[in-house]
Every structure is written in structure tokens, then in C-alpha cells.
């Protein structure tokens, strides 16, 4: 057995976990992670059967050892890939069973350890014709489903990204992502099919390149969340916010004005109301960017309207959209009505009540 570095695995540890390293046939080619004595071992045992080997089979396992507390999900694909490569190498040129080439294993393992720890990627030249490339991929959470009425907004400056690295669909819609156009609009203006836009944006969401906010209208209602206090507590958020919301070409807005504006957002108050009540504070502040920043950082949240048909009439059809599950945003997007039209239609119906949340 070869170990790099030599002393990291004790004799006792190896004896204890031996059964998980060189395993019974049933466990071969499976990724095995075992935790023992403060260490975690990740390996993938391989068995190659052939007459040429003593005992008619060669069993080997290249594993990684970490501290027991490490999160090792990202290392698993690397271990699997390595086991595949070594298997191929052995079958093609007897790399492992050959005494000479076997010596190369130690330096390869050293390089692997050093480079993975340093940069998260490594290149292992095996011989003239073979090189193994490995990279640690960060695991991310599943993104939310993107709806047609969601608005994607870049979390960093758009120009930071090398556009040619993205797929064609994403490249085509990038210009239309401005933090105000919703998915349906982007699809129409960029002339890309709706579901493709949704998938492309979901992909951007996965990598944290964009985040989703709701459609902006002056009739929207917002309210503060407990996170709004972070504007007072956190210096970096203050800086970022004031830079973001100040009108172009104006002197930077002051914290008090901006905080007052956010606190001025309450249930029942529309953005239009805010603009008329706080016109002095809005002299140096762009209200659209104020709302956008507030939503991105969860300083405020949008209150959506949900119509519910509380009908008493048994004979009428059950409501399809007015069930309390679909917001005005969604209904307007799907039916093509404007807010005003929907409002007028529903206000005249005594059976419909509206909930805000």
C-alpha cells in the first residue's frame, strides 16, 4: 500500500477500515466513504479479473483521506474519475501491475494532493500520451422554478462576465436582463421561446449570477422585513445601497433619507403614495432602484394581491384562477389583462374577496 503523506493513516485506522477499502465483490466500483477515528476515507475499489494476475485478479483502490468534519461531496466525482482512469490505464498498458510504472504512482499521488489542496484543480501527466485533468466542482442548491412574471436582475455588474462563455440562448437574452423586464417580456423582445428563457435564467440563478425580484409598478405595495435593520448595522450594506440607489449624476444620497424611504413602505401604501409623501427624500434617490435593491437584499418584500372567489352558488363553475393560489402578477401575465382591467373586473364581483400577503 502506498500512502501520501506516509504518517497520515495509522496502522490501527487501516486495520479498522480495511474491509471498506479492499472489499468483497459486491461492493466493487461503488463510491465508499467511511468515517473512523477522526478521519474520513473516500475510495472506489476496483477489481480486474485476468489470468495473468496472481490469484487471477487485481484489486486496487485509490482513495482520499480527509478530516472527519470535512464536507466531501465535491471530492466524490474526482475519486470516481480517478478510479476509471486507472482502470483504463491498467487495461491498456498494465500501468498498476507493472513494477516499473507502479513507481510513478507515488509522485502522482503527491501532485494530486498538493494541487487539489492549493487550487482545487490539478493536471497529472501519466506518460507521453496520457494526462488526467481534475477539478473540484462546488455543489450548489437547486434553484427555484422561474415563472413568467419573475424579473431577473444581475447581482454583479453585467460587464464582469465574458459573454462568449455562455450558451447561445443566454447570450441572446443577456442584453434584455435589466432588472425591470420580466421573463415574458424578455421572451417577446429577444425573440426567444418562453421556456428556453426560463431555463436560461434558471441556470443563471443556479450560479448566483442573477436573483429574482417582482415586476415594478407604481401601484405596487411593499413592506419592510426585519432585515431592513441591517442597513443601520452593516457598513458595507450601507455603502452598497447608497451607491446603488442614488440618481445618476447626483451627490450621494444620505442614509437617513434612504432609511426613511424604506420605512415609509407599509401595507396599504403604494409606491406612488411614497413618492408624493417623501418627495424631499427622493430628490437624490431613484425610486425604482431603491425598490430593486430592497428586494434583492430582502430589506423589503412585495405584498401581492390574491383574489379568492367565495361563492355561495353551487351551480356555478369552480374558479380556475381565483382560488387564492394565483397572484395578480400571475393572472395578468397569463391572461394579458392589465392590473387596472383586472381590478375593475373583480371590484364589480361581490363574490370575490382579495387577500394581500
Amino acid at each position, binding site marked *: 500500500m502506498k500512502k501520501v503523506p506516509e504518517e497520515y493513516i495509522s496502522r490501527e485506522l487501516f486495520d479498522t477500515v480495511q474491509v471498506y477499502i479492499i472489499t468483497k465483490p*459486491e461492493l466493487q466500483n461503488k463510491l465508499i*466513504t467511511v468515517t473512523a477515528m477522526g478521519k474520513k476515507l473516500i475510495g472506489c475499489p476496483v477489481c480486474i479479473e485476468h489470468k495473468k494476475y496472481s490469484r487471477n485478479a487485481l484489486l486496487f483502490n485509490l482513495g482520499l483521506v480527509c478530516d472527519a468534519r470535512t464536507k466531501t461531496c465535491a471530492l466524490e466525482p474526482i475519486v470516481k474519475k480517478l478510479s476509471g482512469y486507472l482502470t483504463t490505464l491498467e487495461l491498456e498498458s498494465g500501468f498498476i501491475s507493472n513494477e516499473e510504472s507502479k513507481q510513478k504512482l507515488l509522485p502522482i499521488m503527491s501532485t494530486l494532493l498538493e494541487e487539489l489542496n492549493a487550487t482545487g484543480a490539478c493536471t497529472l501527466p501519466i506518460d507521453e500520451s496520457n494526462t488526467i485533468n481534475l477539478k473540484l466542482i462546488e455543489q450548489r442548491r437547486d434553484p427555484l422554478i422561474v415563472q413568467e412574471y*419573475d424579473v431577473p436582475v444581475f447581482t454583479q455588474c453585467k460587464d464582469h462576465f465574458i459573454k462568449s462563455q455562455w450558451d447561445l440562448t443566454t447570450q441572446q437574452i443577456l442584453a434584455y436582463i435589466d432588472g425591470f423586464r420580466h421573463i415574458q417580456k424578455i421572451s417577446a423582445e429577444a425573440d426567444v421561446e418562453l421556456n428556453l428563457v426560463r431555463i436560461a435564467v434558471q441556470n443563471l440563478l443556479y450560479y448566483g449570477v442573477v436573483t429574482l425580484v417582482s415586476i415594478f409598478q407604481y401601484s405596487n405595495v411593499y*413592506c419592510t422585513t426585519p432585515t431592513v*435593520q441591517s442597513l443601520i*448595522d452593516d457598513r458595507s450594506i450601507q455603502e452598497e445601497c447608497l451607491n446603488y440607489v442614488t440618481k445618476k449624476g447626483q451627490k450621494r444620497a444620505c442614509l437617513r433619507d434612504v432609511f426613511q424611504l424604506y420605512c415609509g413602505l407599509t401595507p396599504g401604501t403604494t409606491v406612488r403614495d411614497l413618492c408624493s409623501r417623501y418627495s424631499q427624500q427622493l430628490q437624490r434617490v431613484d425610486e425604482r432602484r431603491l425598490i430593486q435593491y430592497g428586494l434583492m437584499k430582502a430589506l423589503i418584500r412585495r405584498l401581492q394581491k390574491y383574489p379568492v372567489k367565495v361563492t355561495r352558488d353551487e351551480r356555478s363553475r369552480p374558479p380556475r384562477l381565483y382560488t387564492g393560489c394565483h397572484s395578480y402578477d400571475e393572472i395578468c401575465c397569463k391572461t394579458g389583462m392589465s392590473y387596472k382591467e383586472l381590478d375593475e373586473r373583480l371590484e364589480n364581483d361581490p363574490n370575490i374577496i382579495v387577500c394581500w400577503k
Partner: protein
Amino acid sequence: MYIHSSSFDLQGERKSMYKQSENSFFKRGEKTSPISVILVTSGSRGNKLLFRYPFQRVADCTSSLTTKQRSPYALNTTGDVLEDPDGDSREQTPLTDQQLVAGFSDIILATILATKSDMCGKKFELKIDNVRFVGHPTLLQHPHTIQVSKTDPSPKREMPTMILFSVVFALRANADPSVISCMHNLSRRIAIALQHEERRCQYLTREAKLMLAVQDEVTNMTETDGSPQSPFRQILPKCKLARDLKEAYDSLCTTGVVRLHINNWLEVSFCLPHKIHRVGGNHVPPEALERSLKAIRPYHALLLLDSEKALLAQLPLDCSPALVRLIKTCSAVKNLQQLAQDADLNLLQIFQIAAHLVYWGKAIIVYPLCENNVYMLSPHANISLYSPLAEAFGQQFPGHDLPSMLAKFSLPLSLSEFRNPLDASVQEAQLIQMVVWMLQRRLLIQLHTYVCLLVPPSEEEPGLLRDEELPLVARVGGRSLSTPSALSFGSPTSSDDMTLTSPSMDNSSAELLPGGDSPLNRRMTETLLASLTEHERQVILNIPAAQSPEDLRMFARLLHYFRGHHHLEEIMYNENMRRSQLKTLFDKFRSVLVVTNHEDPVISLFQSPLE
């Protein structure tokens, strides 16, 4: 919120396009359930798998009997790897949970799960492809029969000796780390009970003997008849331990509450918070729960989620009388301090029992109900016409429908406003019941008023708060009465933190000082205002209301609350002040204060899932 609205399927293609995401949504629920429970031992007869549940179907049994054959679910044989030049593992069609573990034969499980003795007494965790095994291997002392046989020459029937055993749970590999550690906890608890019973009356050895006997019997029958059967099915009716393990598994998969009686004697109880605390489709991680519980205050109240009768019926016979007393005395209008007095318990006990009830999903923490409480519809409330909640509400309160009630809370509504309905047919008491009902189901959130000191900037100063202004609370020596600090589950604390009677005597002593502009008062005010910058002080002193020494003194005294982290009710409680006094003060100094309303982040955990 968006995941909820996709429950109504309007477009077929949307569903298929997003099947993967929706599948993962459903899988999230299964991620908190175990796939299998397995009991293994290691002893003089080698490693044995005594019992597993769910057991394999008959068809799979035959394939695993022959050890030479590869498991039918083994991924990537050597042949496959050759075809794929990159060496990447090919994406197989996803196996069901049962298939994942059924692919492991009894023998291989016995080998890998019955560990060496030096892994005993610690958490055991093994991950193989998509399955994670977690357990707590436990060493048994050598039974005294071994020593006896050394000295006693008379032939004794050779009793197979058990060296160690392990109750192992198989989970999906991507289960949450907190779920894994909970399962480990349960495994450990069962192990402790079994170890105890083994020492007392060799319970485990006897059960093991029964299980192995049935297994041998079934193997013999298979060899003679040729018809394969699952031995575990036969074991169930004969062994109590097998039935206990099955019950543990079934409970974990459904309610998340496990109550076993090992050997009909020792009780093992356990709850999986992930199944119990689900708000809006997501579970509340136990660490967040614990953090919130440590931050509750004596002015909070405990709201039971079941009726008093139902809750008392669930308690074991030998439960603590303090718990019973608390449940009987508890009420949504009573804060924890009052509860302590009424139930004749000290505050620490109340906190501990309250935390216990909350952890087990039997109660939540709220602010005690009173006239001035302002409630609003929770953003995570299910307001669908067809939700089971709507139906339950209609049954509980005939003639009323839930959506209409919820619509009333679209705008923040105080209890007193709610109780003056235009519709006079509803009884007042029933209205309160409705609010309690809605709070219990996390449909409403309570809003509190928070205040922040922000002085209009001078011309020269930048619009930001300077660094030295930020730690205001520390410098003024802000007295915020904290919850008994060592509220960790089950650990005793010193008695100093315990006795929180009425709020701080120090601050209210200001009331006892001679009123008016005495030198002492002036000095105190000056000291308190010294923490502000020169500019801030100037602005405040220029406010007309500051000309009144009493008002200024009150303002200075409360200065450390004006950082946006203490709500009105907390200030009222700490400083023994009336709401009207505070509101008047805020109004007088409104040019330097910014006021906002939002939910209390400390208890909002119980109302909304974490991001």
C-alpha cells in the same frame, strides 16, 4: 411562494419541463425519512445480520443467496468504463429507495455494518454510492457464562457470545446533516436501552437467538422445498425487538415521533424535528430552533398547538408534574413570567419546559394576546380556497369561511379593531378563538414597532454613521434583561439568572428621584447623551420637546433602545412604561427618530420557514 403556486397545473408542458425540479421538491420530503433499519451483531458466530426492515421481495432474495453473483443494482461494471473515455460515471436511471438498499445482500451488510470493536461507542457513518448508513455500534460486556465455564468443568451448552451490536439506519446519501445526526441519536438511544436490558436479563441475546433460529429454519426450508421466502417476515410475529424496529421505521417515515418500549420495560422516545416543524413545505433546522428558543424573553407567551386535554392524554404516566401543571395553567394571554407565578415554578423551569414543548412541536412562542397586538397575514399562509385548512376552519366555525377572515388581515389589524366588527353577529369570544386558531396554524404574523435614531446630517458630515457610533448599546451599558443565559437543553444553571421578577429596579428608580431639574438628574442626562456625537447632541437639544427636562431625561434613558432591535413592547416591559407614554415620546422626538413595523425576528422562525 413560487413553488406553492405551481400546484395548480395550467400548462402541461410546464410540468414536464420542470419535472426534475418538482421531483426534487418531493424528494426533499423523503430525504428526512430513513430507507431501511438494520440490526447487525458481531460475536463468536461471526458477523450476522439479525433483522432488516423493509425486507426484500422474494424475487430479490434468490439473487443475493449466491455470493458469486454481482448485485443486480451494482453500477458500472468494468465493461461500461471502457466505453466512456472520460471515465465519468454514466447517469443510470434513478433507482427507488427500496432498490438502493435491497441491492445489498444480508451478508454484505453484515460485513460492512458490524464493525470492529474499536469503532464502538462512536458515531458510525458509511456512505456507499447513494446510500448512507448511520449507527452507533455498541460493545457488550462478555456475559458471565464465559468466565464461569473456565472454572466450572461441567459441560455447559455453548452459548454463542455477542461482542457488539449496531442498530443502523439507511438514508439517502444527500440527507441533511442534521437529519443524519438525529438518526444517529435515535440509534444511540435504542443501543443504550438494549445494552441495559442485555446486562439485566440477556434480552438481546435471547432475541438474537430467536431471530437466527428463524433464519436457519427458513434457509433449511428453502434448500429442501426450493421455494424462497423472506426469513424476516417470519421473525416479526416471534420477536418483540423486530416489531419495535419496524415501528421505529414506520414512525420515522410518517409522524416523526417514535415511542418504543424495549422489552416492554424501557421507554425510548424520540422526535425528528424535521418532520414535526414544517412551515410552508420546508423544515425548520434544529439549530435554528434552538437559537430561537434561547432568545425568548419572559414577556413572551406559550401557545399550545393542541387542546389541553389532547396534550395531557399524550403524556406518559410517569411524566413530570411540573409539565402537567404548566400545561393546565398555560394560556395565550399569559406571559411566561406570569405563568411561572401561576404554576408555582421558577422561571428557568418554565423556560426549559416551554423549550421542550416547542421542540416536540406541541407549542409555539408568541407575544401574549392583548388588545393592541397588531396582526397581518403571513406571507407563507396558504390562502387557497381548497386547502385542508379552509375546510377545517369551516368545521370549527360554522357559517364562516377562512379566506374572508384572512382577507380582513390583509392590512395590519389590531385585535381591538378586529373585535369591533361591522358584522355584529359574531361573538367576541369566538373572534378571539379564531385568531388563536389562525396563529396556531401559522396563518398570521404579529407586527411590532421598532425605532431607530437617525439625526439629519449636517452639511459637512458624510451621510453615513461613523464607526464610533455603531456600538451604542455597549457604551451606554444597555440594560436588556436577557433570558437565563444557560438555556441549553438539559443543563442546570446558577440561580442568579433565574429570578427575574419585575423589570429592572435601577432604571425605574429614576421615577423615585425628585422630579424636575435637579443637578443629579441633569448629570445623568448628560452622561447618557455623552455617547452621541456633538452634532447629534446639538440637533436633539434643539428640538422643542428637549426643553422639558423630564422628556429629555426619558429620551436619554431610552436612547440605547433606538437601534432598531428592540420593539415597543420590549421597552415597555423592561422600563415599566405605558404604551401611551412611549408613543407620546416618539411623537415629540419624531424629527430624529425613524419608526417602522415588522415581525419580531426572534419568534418569526415559528411563523415562516428559513430562506
